[in-house]
């Protein structure tokens, strides 16, 4: 599916940089700002022409192109009758990560079908729990399966039904609930689960901090998702969050991988961390040099990361 875009919107570069909330792309540093705008514009043009298939491609592209007349209908068509989304149109296995991402992408659209779709998606998400939330599995993890360190009483969302909670689907589900202003006790439970799974040195991986007595290494994208989910939960000032932000800035200091850089930049910008300018330059270079081979999901998250004012999932508007 290629995006249909109204001609009047082509060339729109986003909001006035003077309304920058975080100050990370500072007015006055004209060259940096112009570079941001030019690169983002290139990415959006490429994104409009690129076919999207997977839910992550479609959802992130819709979000990136929300001010360019992108149509939410293709994403709505991919919703399952259960209310969930799967990874791809032909895959009927429901997936919490993709469902949360679809909800975030649909948030700016104030249409009746979108609200109906969101109601059904939140109902599905509310029912889905990590398998460790059942007392029987909690008992098993406490008594026998003790090689992986985690508190089974703290659960969030699994990727797919029948598995335990992991960081990425939990973080995105929390962001979706908050973006849509839906109250749920699951948000606080998800926050506790994410804090429990943090790597001791800072950062998060998929969701195991220690296995067989060995501390595991964090990964940039999961770390970014986790700190974004914690930002408005009253835990944004915790030491673990700031250690994790420092980890992101240091870990990617020489990287040119657009996926990790873009997620990290969104997270660092949301906290006003000082490492954003350097990462922005790396993201621009890494994306423009490979713009013809990068998939829509990566281009779209790069475009979001380069938005000014800084993009946040919870306050996304058209």
């Amino acid at each position: 599916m290629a995006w249909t875009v109204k001609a009047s919107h082509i060339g729109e570069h986003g909001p006035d940089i003077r309304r920058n909330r975080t100050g990370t792309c500072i007015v006055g540093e004209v060259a940096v700002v112009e570079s941001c705008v030019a690169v983002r514009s290139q990415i959006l043009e490429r994104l409009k022409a690129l076919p999207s298939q997977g839910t992550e491609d479609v959802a992130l592209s819709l979000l990136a192109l929300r001010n360019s007349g992108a149509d939410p209908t293709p994403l709505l068509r991919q919703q399952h009758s259960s209310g969930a989304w799967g990874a791809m149109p032909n895959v009927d296995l429901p997936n919490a990560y993709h469902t949360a991402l679809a909800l975030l992408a649909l948030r700016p659209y104030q249409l009746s079908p979108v609200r109906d779709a969101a109601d059904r998606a939140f109902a599905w998400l509310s029912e889905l729990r990590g398998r460790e939330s059942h007392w029987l599995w909690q008992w098993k993890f406490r008594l026998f399966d003790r090689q992986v360190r985690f508190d089974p009483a703290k659960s969030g969302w699994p990727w797919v039904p029948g598995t335990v909670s992991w960081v990425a689907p939990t973080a995105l589900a929390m962001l979706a609930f908050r973006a849509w202003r839906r109250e749920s006790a699951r948000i606080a439970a998800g926050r506790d689960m994410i804090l429990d799974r943090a790597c001791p040195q800072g950062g998060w991986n998929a969701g195991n901090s220690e296995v067989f007595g060995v501390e595991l290494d964090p990964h940039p994208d999961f770390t970014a998702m986790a700190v974004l989910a914690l930002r408005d939960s009253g835990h944004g000032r915790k030491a673990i969050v700031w250690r994790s932000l420092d980890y992101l800035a240091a870990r990617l200091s020489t990287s040119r991988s657009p996926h990790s850089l873009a997620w990290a930049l969104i997270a660092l910008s949301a906290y006003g961390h000082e490492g954003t300018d350097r990462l922005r330059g790396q993201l621009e270079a890494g994306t423009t040099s490979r713009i013809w081979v990068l998939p829509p999901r990566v281009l779209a998250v790069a475009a979001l990361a380069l938005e000014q004012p800084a993009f946040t999932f919870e306050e996304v508007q058209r």
Partner: protein
Amino acid sequence: MNRRSLLSGVALVATTGLAVHQHWPSRVLGRRPHMSKVAILRCDRYDLTPRAVEDGFRLLPLSVRGKRVLLKPNLVEYSSAAPINTHPLLIASVIDALYRRGAASVVVADGPGHVRDTDLLLYESGLQAQLDAVGRSGFVDLNFDSVIRVAPTTGLTQLRELWLPKTLLSADIVISMPKIKTHHWACVTLSLKNLFGIVPGSVYGWPKNVLHWQGIDNSIVELAASVPIHYVIADGIEAMEGNGPLHGPVKRLGCLLFADDPVAADATCCRLMGIDPTRVRHLQMTSQLGNLDATRIEQRGEGVEHVKQQFDLLPQFTHLRGQV
């Protein structure tokens, strides 16, 4: 009969039924060849792999002319301190050798189980640099490939369907290229366990937790029954012992292993590691798919006895040690 004994009886019957269900060997459709062939070549440096790979293909030829070949290395995550991934220089040597033998195309494909950013892993591991240097072979991220529904055949898992990558299923020849490592859940991770990387993370998540809940051994067998591995090239130049697959120390085994049967390949790797393959559960369960028995494996190149070393094992696996 009181209520307690009734419940106990029901629990016992259910547990027994589940145990029988998950151990039933005849569920795996047999495709075991009469004899399998394995070649072991000494090689103690990765810069020597071009020559070693040529020697391996001479000892154990593989017909690839006009075929689309898929190389499935073991890419998990990068550490400068541990030999986690199949070495990029070996992968490059194999690509080069396959093109020299007339392969129509050679693609390297994997879906890392721990990381979503495969680009980052390709750059940090050095594989992207090697692919760029070879120039004729691209990488397909199986975590995000188009998928096709495949019906499970063994009944060992509760999965109604498997979603598997189109690129993998459309290849003419699949070569599994594991790193020879111990594994803290499965004892060893070799050419069969390497199949976890074909399961798409975009569908199932990271890590591929569905497979753990279905039982790691059961899932390995289900994947092995669903996806034929035509050839194996195992990286044993720098292997891993102890707490694999990520945190064990390097074990310099100093060899490459070529095989035309993944079960025979893994059985021989186990013997090289000082492990009795007949005691490794997932290998027992795949005995219908290939040859575990040393008398059914034609050995070429170096003998097992001359190359094998005793690998350190986690305490839960020390009972699997074989005669060294």
